[in-house]
């Protein structure tokens, strides 16, 4: 298999710590196999850096199968890399050619401060969730799963919204750094279901206010988020959030 190996140059953002200044640095990676994932290629580069006593490039990843939302890089200007609706851990080196120069950058959003190299702190999304991205249930025996009828179409739509893995690509891709696709998905997945209905006004108001408090930009309906979202979350969820928020504001007692 060694015959189809090739070499690439990666230009990577290096930043020593939070708030620090960073810069792009170039590294040559020889012996890249087309079967490697993009992150594996970075692993190989890191092993090489460690061998040479240099500090390895910090980047986030966990599942490496596109379901956890940990990874997130801008590759050659494409959020999550060149594949459509895919996470960067699902990107493979067969997408590149021998001699390619690949630019790798972290999410560059003020609400996601870079901690080191390619690692951005996305805990602002967790704080939006903590503000209302849940339902309240009594502890004890789990209720019968089929006791509450749910419309099949609603269940599917809720499921599609719940596919959001919280990767933050929507924010990184948005011209305004808005987190409304994420927040819209998180509000929708509950608002669509009967279990989420009792708290829906409170939830929409609290989550939008928490989102604003994190300093995210405002949605201008550019829909760049939908175009990059690895889970293909639809902007109809943003409309639902707007609706839930406005109805909650004008019609609820809060």
């Amino acid at each position: 298999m060694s015959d189809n190996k090739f070499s690439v140059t990666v230009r990577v953002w290096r930043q020593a710590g939070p708030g620090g200044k960073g810069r792009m640095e170039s590294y040559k990676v020889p012996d890249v196999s087309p079967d490697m994932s993009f992150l594996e290629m970075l692993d190989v580069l890191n092993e090489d850096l460690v061998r040479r006593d240099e500090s390895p490039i910090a980047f986030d990843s966990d599942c490496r199968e596109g379901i956890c939302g940990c990874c997130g890089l801008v590759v050659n200007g494409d959020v999550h890399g060149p594949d459509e609706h895919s996470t960067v851990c699902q990107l493979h080196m067969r997408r590149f050619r021998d001699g390619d120069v690949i630019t790798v950058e972290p999410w560059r959003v003020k609400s996601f401060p870079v901690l080191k190299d390619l690692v951005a702190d996305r805990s602002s999304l967790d704080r939006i969730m903590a503000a209302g991205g849940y339902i309240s249930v009594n502890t004890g025996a789990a209720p019968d799963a089929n006791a509450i009828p749910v419309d099949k179409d609603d269940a599917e739509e809720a499921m599609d919204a719940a596919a959001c893995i919280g990767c933050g690509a929507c924010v990184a891709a948005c011209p305004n750094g808005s987190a409304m696709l994420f927040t819209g998905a998180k509000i929708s997945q509950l608002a669509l279901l009967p279990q989420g209905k009792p708290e829906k006004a409170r939830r929409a108001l609290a989550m939008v206010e928490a989102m604003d408090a994190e300093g995210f930009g405002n949605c201008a309906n550019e829909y760049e988020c939908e175009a990059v979202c690895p889970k293909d979350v639809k902007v109809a969820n943003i409309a639902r959030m707007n609706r839930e928020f406005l109805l909650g504001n004008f019609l609820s007692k809060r």
Partner: protein
Amino acid sequence: MDLGFVKRVIFTSIGRKFVMAVTGLALGAFIIVHLGANLLLMKGEESYNGYVALLLANPLILYAELGLAAIFLLHIATAVWVRWEDWRNAPSGYEERRWQGGRTLGSATMLYTAIAILAFLVYHIVDFRFGDHSVGFYQMVTAAFRDPVFVGIYVAGSLALALHLSHGMQSSFQTLGVNHPKYTPFIKFGGLLVALSMIGFALISVYFLLELDHRKAEHHYQVAATEAR
């Protein structure tokens, strides 16, 4: 009295966007009526001046004007606020960045078309609203439309408006939470039609620039003359 809900309209992202969308739609409705009025120019002096006289005779016209101005100012104020926040938090510093096909020409140029429209509007108001009305409204407008410089500005203004509305119309509905698999395609199509119709302003001004109205009158005159013979 709990004013929390009013505060939320002013101080939250979606609240401000709500104001921007509602005022935007109101301005869209206004501009369509305005286009209708301009079409009367082509029917001739009598129709146009008659319409203007009817408008001015309405005792509520001053309040309507003030209301319109207020809507404009609200639209501008919320837009500036929203934009300023966006600008502060917009991702910045990417070495390379590629748009992924969500943006359109209209959406990406909203700020620039907005500035162009505002500049045009100021010029338009100074020129027409506070201009010399003594010659009659029809004469004032058509005289301006025979000046190539004015028509150039006017055409540019209406194109900027068309581009602005190509995004703004459908965007307003999304912001108001109106997004439905059945109706959104119609809303988008309707928004584009409204945007496209703004080119009508340009066409009407060019009509007078090319003196097509004179030609039409000549034609009438000739037909009348032949029939009389």
